[in-house]
């Protein structure tokens, strides 16, 4: 027993696995004699790695980039690091639907699914133009308020993005449970508050990231010279975001939402 062990390696890797790993600790047969002969009394007696240790060691590394969902380039000013998974996002004001579609577009292109619950007037042609991959979009009409929470909870965790616009006020408990489920499963819950409804009255839970749409200006036609080729071309809108992970004074950007081809662009 005079083999020199390279001291740089942790002992737990070199030890023989304990045959009685499944027994309670007091019944383990501990290799105490070998250790005492080596004269190193300070070492822990139990040298076999526990299951938790092994799991810790062999767990795949999660890169920060995997914990975010990608967003389109136009939104890079608002999301320098992408959209963090597990957050609850609120979008309010005129143009909230376009903003929500822009948020989801890139993620759907990279394989994420989107469930839209209770927003039956979502313009799907606009979604297509913004770049949402429609083959990964499912739409559920507003369920009865009693079933609303279970429907949304089914989608949270199963799809990466859940867009809700509840026609009723969900209970505080439901909102908290959904937010917790999002954090645990890494889904993003997007709450849509169309103009005329403030976030406070529509959603009883905490909103991690709140987008507010500022005043919008449409370009294209004007009142004096509506010629045969005139059409709505683009909308210039200032979007501001506040909440967790955002500097206190907020972050804002001026976007063309949409630009003349229907795609969001940064001005």
């Amino acid at each position, binding site marked *: 027993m005079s083999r020199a062990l390279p001291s740089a390696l942790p002992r737990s890797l070199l030890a023989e696995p304990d045959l009685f790993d499944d027994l309670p600790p007091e019944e383990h047969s501990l290799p105490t004699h070998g250790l005492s002969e080596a004269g190193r009394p300070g070492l822990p007696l139990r040298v076999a790695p526990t299951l938790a240790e092994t799991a810790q060691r062999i767990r795949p590394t999660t890169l920060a980039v995997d914990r975010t969902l990608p967003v389109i380039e136009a939104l890079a000013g608002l999301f320098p690091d992408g959209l963090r998974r597990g957050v609850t996002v609120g979008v309010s004001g005129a143009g909230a639907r376009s903003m929500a579609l822009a948020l989801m577009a890139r993620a759907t292109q990279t394989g994420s*699914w989107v469930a839209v619950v209770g927003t039956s*007037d979502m313009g799907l042609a606009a979604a297509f133009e913004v770049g949402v991959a429609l083959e990964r979009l499912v*739409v559920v009409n507003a369920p009865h308020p009693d079933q609303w929470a279970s429907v949304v909870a*089914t989608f949270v965790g*199963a799809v990466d993005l859940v867009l809700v616009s509840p026609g009723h006020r969900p209970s505080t408990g439901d909102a908290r449970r959904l937010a917790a489920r999002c954090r645990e499963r890494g889904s993003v819950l997007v709450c849509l508050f169309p103009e005329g409804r403030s976030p406070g009255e529509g959603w009883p839970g905490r909103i991690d990231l709140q987008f507010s749409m500022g005043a919008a200006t449409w370009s294209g036609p004007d009142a004096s010279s*509506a010629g045969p080729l005139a059409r709505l071309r683009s909308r210039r809108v200032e979007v501001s975001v506040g909440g967790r992970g955002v500097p206190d004074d907020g972050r804002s950007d001026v976007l063309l939402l949409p630009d003349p081809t*229907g795609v969001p662009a940064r001005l």
Partner: protein
Amino acid sequence: MNGAPAATDSPAAVRTLVVGCPDWPLTALGVDPGEQALVLGAGRVVAATGPARAVGVARGQHRREAQYLCPEVRVLARDEAREAREFEVVASALGAVTPWVEARCPGRCSFGVLGPVRLFGGEVALVRHTAEVVGAAVDRLELGAGSHPGCRIGVADGAFAAGLAARVGGVAPEGAVVVPPGRSPDFLAPLPVAVLTTPLAGRGAELVDVLIRLGLTTLGAFAAIPVADVSARFGNDGLDAHRLASGVDNRPVGHRSAPPDLAVSVPFDPPVDRIDRAAFAARSAAEALHERLSARGMACTRLLVEVETEHGERMSRRWRDEGVLGPVAVVDRVRWQLEGWLHGPPAVRPTSGIVLLVLVPDEVVPAVGRQLGFWGGASAADERAGRACDRVVGLLGPGSVRVPEWRGGRDPDDQVALVPFVGLTESPTRVEPLEGAPPWPGALPRPSPAAVHTEPVAIDVVDAGGVPVTVDGRGVLSAPPARLVLPERVSLGVDPDTGSDQRVTAWAGPWPVDERWWDPLRRSRRARLQIVTADGTARLVALADGQWTVVATYD
């Protein structure tokens, strides 16, 4: 692929008798075949009585279309459970003719005539006896109506030809069509190729479309093409279709009996007496069966469903499908069978709950598999999302989860329609315009509105003098719009109480459109305007029949 068996080498088609009860959904609901009535399933007509058909009602029509053609028609909702329950009585009555009854769906079953024809002394006698048995069973159901439309019977080589013989014939026994042995190809030859759509399931419509455009409008014309050429051009599906059209064998290429170890059994403890619970368990069993089969590259075409109760009562039935029985189809069959047994008449009803359900694949074919995407097909995320959708469908009912399908059109709500979610990538819906598709003249330009109102709101569009704006036949506005007059409460995202300004600051259009002017029912003539108001909101408004509505908002 010269190794494909030539028609003459094929095994002889099994001589088959098909019994079909036309419009079983109506019969099961106890509707008198003499009145004008129809049954709606998933928004479409699934069955209609003779008088209703006489004025133009047909399967697949929308409710509104049917009611337009036949205003006083009685509209009934489909009750699949009841259909299965009532038909089980008929199927079990046929057990007196032969034990080898294969059910297809409520209203339709078949069996091989080889055995029973000896017992009854000839096919004509067999047909007469079968018609009597079925007629007596339907009469015993006491469905309320005094009469029923009777059943159709066809006998031919192969189930495909026999099914068509039953369809073209009249009411059995006099109207039954018995195609003499060996004459099935002659019987099939003049029939249109469109009859291939159903047996080929999802793959048929496209093939039939191509055949018609090639000028091969009858089965005979298609069957006349050498089998090697069909195989080279249309692959396995084409080969299946060609065999059906030739009337040589109804079974797909390469069928074989399944080895017995593929059966899946589900014990229930405690016993279940509710169909929804059994069907729930059947779902996972069906998926397990599907996985076992697909691991061996096989798919099931005939399935034996066996059920046993706590008191040892057993009931088994063979189910055959024209195509391949997928997990969803298997669950439907289990539900139908249990519906017929557990809720059937007291004489056949078991006395205790079910303790065992066994799914035995009776006949299998090599699976062609589902077409996956080029880069690896369904991902884990797709599977997860599909399961979640299934669960929500279970929660809210069929049709509650919908997916987009690209249709194309002139209005934002025409371009993409929502269709019920049926399953993951079984037949992916098209979600973008076809490459190089011709444009829609009169379509609105991009960008599209992000909010398309499901219920358009009536408004007034007035000019500077307060006079309503109109559009003349040439698509010219009577005057530039100056103001929108919204109704008292509008839930379009703009609250009139906040004093939002509805003066028009910019507008574009009009885009006039006159669609389907040849069809009085679906004609639509309207003019669209894009209007921006002083509060910064851009809306799409349309004028039709003298009334302006807000159809969408550029939210």
